[in-house]
């Protein structure tokens, strides 16, 4: 067993876990943050993407204990005081989600992208999403959702909180 201390969505957490516990499992099973999903076992689909110290990471491919001491942000931490993050708003406005399963990972990956490029081209968005699978939307509206969020961020209405 190993002790893990993290800041998750701004809250300190301290737990004992088995050494082999993956961060995705830790978030889902130990912290009940079930917004982070697991869609594959080969580090491919990106449904489990979260931000570790501001960077998009596949939480199924990192041990909880490896992340000890990190700042973690999950989909549950994206809205602030009940106000949706521009990406969450973009996905709603542009119908960027259907079944919702890939959505948290998509949003977290997009948050990483927009944190260093707030005016990405369609091609840049599509390339940034290469590690996230969606089976419902054909990606068309996901691209528009991210463009929507980027525009809102550029207009200064909201800061990127990645």
């Amino acid at each position, binding site marked *: 067993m190993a002790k893990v201390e993290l800041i998750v969505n701004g809250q300190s957490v301290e737990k004992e876990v088995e050494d082999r516990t993956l961060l995705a499992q830790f978030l889902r099973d130990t912290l009940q943050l079930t917004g982070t999903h697991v869609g594959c076992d080969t580090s491919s689909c990106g449904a489990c993407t979260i931000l570790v110290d501001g960077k998009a990471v596949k939480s199924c491919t990192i041990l909880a204990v490896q992340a000890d001491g990190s700042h973690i942000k999950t989909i549950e931490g994206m809205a602030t005081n009940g106000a949706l993050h521009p990406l969450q708003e973009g*996905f709603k406005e542009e*119908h960027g989600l259907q*079944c919702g399963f890939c959505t948290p990972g998509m949003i977290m990956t997009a948050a990483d992208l927009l944190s260093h490029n707030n005016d990405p081209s369609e091609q840049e968005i599509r390339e940034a999403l290469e590690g996230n699978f969606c089976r419902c939307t054909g*990606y068309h509206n996901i691209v528009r959702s991210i463009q929507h969020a980027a525009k809102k961020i550029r207009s200064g209405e909201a800061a990127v909180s990645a």
Partner: protein
Amino acid sequence: MTFIGKSVKRVEDQRFLTGKGRYTDDIVLPGMTYAYILRSPYAHAKILSINTSKAEAMDGVVKIFTGKDIAAAGINGVPCGWQVNFKNGDTMKEPPHPLLVADKARYAGDGVAMIIAESKEAARDAADMVDVEYEELDAVTNAADAVADGKPLVHDDAPNNMCFDWELGNPIDEVNAAMSAADHITSLEFTNQRVIPNAMEPRAAIGQYEDHSGKYTLHTTSQNPHLTRLLMCAFVLGVPEHKVRVVAPDVGGGFGSKIFHYAEEALVIWASKQLNRPVKWTSDRSEAFLTDAHGRDHISKAEMGFDKDGNILALRVKTHANLGAYLSTFAPCVPTWLHGTLLQGLYTTPKINVDVTGVFTHTTPVDAYRGAGRPEATYLLERLLDKAALEMKRDPAELRLQNFIPAFDGVKEEGYMTQVALQYDSGNYHGVLERALEMVGYEDFRKEQAAARDEGRLLGIGFSTYIEACGIAPSAVVGALGARAGLYESAQVRVQPTGKVSVYSGSHSHGQGHETTFAQVVADKLGIPLEDVEIVHGDSEAVAFGMGTYGSRSLAVGGSAIVRSIEKVLEKGAQIAAHKLEANPEDLEYAGGKWTVKGTDKSVAFGDVALTAYVPHDYPQGLEPGMDFSSFYDPANFTYPFGAHIAIVEVDKDTGKVSLKRFIAVDDVGNVINPMIVDGQIHGGLAQGIGQALFEGAIYDEYGQLTNGSYMDYTMPRADDLPSFEVDRQVTPCPHNPLGVKGAGEAGCIGSTPAVVNAVMDALAPFGIKDLEMPMTPERVWRTMNS
């Protein structure tokens, strides 16, 4: 109308966007145990022995069940919901499909033992310690091979691995005669390859038994919880249906693969009673590749005869359909009634004969996958049309326009009776293709293509026009065709005393947005705010009954059931309103959320009437209190969406890699309630259909091993593989349901595949290539260019 026809933002999005969606694997019950299914690594093997003693002794292991335990408990296998008999009248071969196999594994992935432990880690660790001794046997994976004499048998009582053979259409002699009179015959032999659905949420199931009440609850990743309950209770476990609650909470996509009743659902329910503790099973992706029912897998030979002017005279089709090792819930219906019946397409073909053999192989069961049978029919027809155009030196768009059935609205003009058992409801097929041609700029493209060819670049354009039978389906009709279920839908509309409305629908939503679209219908019909309507689905305890979501049926059938219940609400409401207004019900009109006496300003609001229904102090004599109505809507006919898709591709001469440059889709799905959602459905379908054309396909080796059962080897379409789509719509209302809707869920997937393939063939035309199998991978394309 305030909401119908508007792109209302989805009400379900809030929970999904904030991580508050509740999927089956998110649910944790007190005292829950975790199951791991140990599966056969061999496609065909005798199970000589299973030793679980080492595993059972491990920390945290609660219990291990094997196939023998299941057999000893007298549990039946998973049933099939559709019967297709042999042409000679013999009954379809329907071998048992055990929850766990005891003696023999019939595909790689067949369940052998269920390990239940205190944690998923303990269950997984123990699985490595279960000792199974197998004797590996020869396997057969290809449907056309499997029917030959002397091949390994999947089931001893199914000679030549045949499940059924089946024929539809005009007598073969008539078709042969028409074919021999043809001036030109285009023929095609091809495989419509097996694809793997890959809903992003892997399947999961939680069984819970409560000994104090004797009741069970199953949480499961299902597109149709009621049907799962019916099949599991009546056919598998023999437990009373009213003692079982099935909940399909948020479900992360299905695409067909979550229609079926799977062994794991019955296993966790049964085991929860044996242990008196909840049991959860969650599939890994690797396991999903092996055990979610696959789609397609047809091997076909098709011939189309034309006269000298290019008019279609006849179509003859012979198909071997791979059903896998066991019959999944709807397996026999997919290659027959959902495939053969669509071979009229949009064309006036006067003579059609289709012959299908359903075949068992040592592979994962095959069943409905987005489109189910209709993509296979469309692919066959649309490849034939493009190939015929090439051979006859005709323009492929013109050849289609020439052979289209003329427009008919199904009201003034009768529905179109096909040669293959269906009557189309309404259609304007020229309209969609002409619009698509306009969008693509057809003449300009041909010029661009010619210029590109001069530079050595390979551009191609491909067409596909399709029709599908959706809104599944009139119960009496499908019953006559072998369905063991009715295909109506139920809806209950409960007006609460405060005028808020709860709607209980049997149509499950797993991405389709029912909670929004249905609410739009209800809010408009009742003239109340959208937020006053709540759509409840996916819980057999809340919803009276349901046949579920598939076959693009939710709005056409489930939505119609809602409309019927609303009509009942308004009828009763009018009686109460008339009483309150001291008028006759027939003198009232309902609009804007109130009943008004025609020609006056005397009115009473919906909310007042609702309250009166529940507080019936001053109330019409003889009228029951309350305002709560159920309806079961059984459609009069299938609905027939159609459309025209055009793909433009470029093939890299050096590598054979195909780039999809543009994709144009003009679909006619009848009336549209929420254009944003319908467009989203089309987009997603397009990506899946394009995926089959270019990337996807299960690959089995000679031993029956699925050799690309992971995302490292099975190519899923990604964001950077696809362009933005150009979509537009035509509206030809369905004449036989109250909303005039036809269904949009499968259209994109049905139309897109042949458009892409035809575009690649057009790009390769300078090489004299006429046929190429899917998926059109770089090597396959490169080889054909260099052969």
